[in-house]
């Protein structure tokens, strides 16, 4: 790890101002915020990240979860994953988020990792993480992609491009995609709201750019819209180990029905996928296949087929197409079977 300067930020606006001189807020940033450190410090040890200045934002007053008068829930960027998972509002109104958080990492890491940092979690692509590989378009734009001809069992099948097939690793962000969260940013030029649906970029020809953040942009809060009335939800994560492992495929589903016989008809659905895409993946295709339909396995399967219709497998991850489909069906079955 090359050495760097560390500065403690006293306010969000000061933090934004301190970071505004960075050339980019994406891969290669020369100024980085550090909160939990679980991604950044890991990547700094690998020399994948080498900021010249690190701004410690842990003293900022952004660690509260607050129910708002309009029914939304405002989650501070520094709320630790463990605290968010066990927050009474989240457990009661957004159980899919609590489940997603508790399925991720270890108890130690959940005590460290923050809400804002988790949104910015970096891919686990081994070629991105290992400087011995000189062909990684995400690290070195234009250098190629070692994963496409290499070991790509864990890589993405949705949202890929000819330049990058790296999987977004977050569980929390998948649940937040289903919940239609909004990201609040304090930037060098003021504050703004970014729907999470618009936050992540597809890799395209510039996989080094993963989101819309600009130099100086500090995530301050995430807002969860008021819960969908009478909705049931579930987060299902499928992986190589039962615990402490990244998803091969995961699904966050939220389903509301009209309460009719045999499970009733679906009035409102949300489907988001993890472990299979280059960003936390919302499947409007699956939702269109569900809305207005009876809540039964035939329609769950149709939704799963719709969600994976455009999937593009690599040499080692064709299995993920069927795995993701079954993940969706199982998650919907589990969610709708709840009392």
């Amino acid at each position, binding site marked *: 790890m090359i*050495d*760097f300067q*560390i500065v403690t930020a006293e306010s969000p606006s000061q933090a934004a101002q301190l970071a505004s001189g960075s050339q980019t807020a994406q891969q290669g940033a020369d100024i980085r915020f550090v909160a939990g450190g679980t991604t950044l*410090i890991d990547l700094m040890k690998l020399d994948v990240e080498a900021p010249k200045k690190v701004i410690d934002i*842990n003293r900022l007053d952004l660690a509260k979860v607050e129910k708002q008068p309009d029914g939304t829930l405002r989650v501070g960027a520094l709320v630790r994953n463990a605290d968010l998972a066990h927050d009474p509002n989240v457990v009661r109104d957004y159980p899919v988020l609590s489940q997603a958080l508790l399925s991720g*990492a270890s*108890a*130690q890491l959940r005590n460290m990792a923050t809400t804002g940092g988790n949104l910015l979690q970096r891919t686990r692509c081994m070629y991105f993480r290992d400087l011995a590989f000189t062909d990684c378009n995400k690290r070195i734009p234009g250098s190629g992609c070692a994963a496409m001809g290499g070991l790509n069992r864990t890589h993405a099948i949705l949202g890929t491009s000819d330049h990058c097939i790296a999987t977004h690793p977050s569980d929390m962000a998948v649940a937040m995609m289903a919940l239609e969260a909004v990201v609040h940013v304090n930037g060098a030029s003021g504050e703004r709201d970014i729907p999470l649906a618009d936050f992540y970029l597809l890799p395209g020809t510039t996989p080094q750019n993963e989101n819309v953040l600009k130099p100086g942009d500090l995530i301050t809060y995430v807002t969860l819209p008021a819960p969908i009335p009478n909705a049931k939800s579930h987060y299902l994560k499928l992986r190589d180990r039962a615990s402490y492992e990244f998803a091969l495929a995961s699904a966050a589903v939220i389903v509301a029905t009209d309460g009719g016989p045999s499970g009733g008809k679906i009035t409102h659905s949300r489907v988001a996928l993890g472990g299979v895409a280059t960003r936390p993946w919302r499947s409007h295709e699956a939702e269109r296949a569900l809305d207005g339909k009876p809540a039964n396995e035939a329609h769950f399967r149709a939704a799963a087929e719709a969600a994976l219709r455009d999937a593009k497998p690599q040499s080692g991850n064709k299995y993920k197409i069927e795995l993701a489909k079954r993940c969706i069906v199982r998650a919907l079955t589990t969610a709708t079977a709840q009392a």
Partner: protein
Amino acid sequence: MSESKSSNTVLPPEISANDDTPKPKNGFTRRTILSGIGAAGIAVTASPVFAATSVIVDTELVEQSAPPAGTILVSLTINGKTHALNIEPRVTLLDCLRENLDLTGTKKGCDHGQCGACTVHINGRRVNSCLTFAAMHRGDEITTIEGIGQPGNLHAMQAAFIEHDGFQCWYCTSGQIMSAVALLKEPWGPEDKDVKEAMAGNICRCGAYPNIIAAVQQVRGNGGSKA
């Protein structure tokens, strides 16, 4: 900082005023011998980044002079004792504990937050000390295995690990115990499977898991939270 002038000054371990760790009569331990070899015998090998540039300082001197180039002054509270150090920003809490403060009970396994050997408590919560910079912890209450219990005055979890043989090689054990002590205050279910999930961030390559679970469950049953 005023009260730190006497008791908080970091002394070399051999003259530390309140170090009651038993020492061999000849004054040598495996660590002091290996450390000596490290300093003199293998100096040509790549040394850890912190060894050459991090300095343990007397707080009185610090107050009179600027930190050495490339270092910053950090005051850390560890096991109830405050230490003032000049360290590079890149020194992790784990390396600071082991290399600067000689608190070597905390172990370095993977150094990437995957194995749990480096688990310590910060403000009562368990964290991986390898994935955080020491400079980020001014004012925090840090507890290491040395602050949990000592020979002759073991924490109930340490005693339970011994009773249930919750180890073989010992390398992961301090991290296991720090995790296990922390989980007593966390909202886990009462079953063995809950303990397995709670302890998933601590890897034991000897495979002492059944005995570790037995130790943890014994302590939980003896007053630990089952909620």
